[in-house]
């Protein structure tokens, strides 16, 4: 169990790179029930002005919190999680896409022993999530 008093604002608590392929998008579509074809058909993605198939925003949100889930041990300690979707993650059919997530202590709420962990998720050296914050209780 993570000791609240051991944390300092700015500490990097976890970092991980996730490799996404089209297979991952199909699997997420089935698991989530989001069958929007822009997540598996290039022709449809291009017809609505996208360069090609992109990852579900909710897949990026879902994987980005996993390093925090592992760091804190029990995902039930997550009391609040929010993101803004700022850029798409384009998943090439042959080479896929890499998303690198860095989790940093953003704020420490002493009275409730809740730590706010800020996530940076990057694809092609650009952030794809904004205001990505996970609040975890360490009480």
């Amino acid at each position, binding site marked *: 169990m993570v000791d609240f008093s051991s944390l300092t604002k700015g500490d990097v608590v976890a970092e991980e790179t996730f490799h996404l392929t089209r297979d991952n998008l199909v699997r997420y579509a089935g698991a989530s029930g989001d069958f929007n074809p822009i997540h598996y058909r290039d022709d449809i993605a291009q017809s609505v002005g996208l360069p090609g198939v992109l990852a579900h925003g909710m897949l990026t949100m879902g994987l980005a919190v996993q390093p925090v889930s592992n760091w804190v041990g029990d995902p039930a300690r997550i009391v*609040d*999680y929010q*993101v*803004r*979707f700022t850029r798409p993650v384009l998943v090439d059919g042959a080479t896929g896409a890499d998303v690198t997530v860095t989790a940093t202590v953003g704020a420490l709420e002493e009275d409730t022993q809740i730590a706010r962990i800020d996530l940076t998720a990057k694809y092609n050296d650009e952030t794809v999530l904004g205001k990505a914050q996970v609040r975890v209780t360490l009480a």
Partner: protein
Amino acid sequence: MAVNPELQGRVFPPTAPYLVGREKIREFSRAVLSTNPVNFDVDAAVAAGHADLVAPATFPVVVQEATLAQLLAEPDAGIDFSRVVHGEQRFTYTRAIVAGDELTATLTVSSVKSLGGHNMITADSDIVDAQGTHVVTAISTLVVRGDED
């Protein structure tokens, strides 16, 4: 077609109960690339103090989906689905979802705004268990792009 501003404040009927199954939690956990044992292994979840497998943090989206379908199907909503982009998402928990939970979601449209030719709709889905006790609120902000794009 513009989004109907009178949607703001509208409360929808509760969705049919959703029974959370172990295999659905495992399937969703694999899909979001979880490796956390409490998402897969009942013994690990019980050892951590839970009644059964724990769902990943973004799992409520599975339950929330039925409420967003209600919103898009509302005859006077004026929402063109082909122009909808997911802008923001938030989950605020009272407790984690575990296998065996029977969950019901109630949608409230908390805000409809117009911004630079686009419309932004914020939809709050309050998810409660079979006892009616709050589990999590899933909040989606949808951006409906204007005709000029």
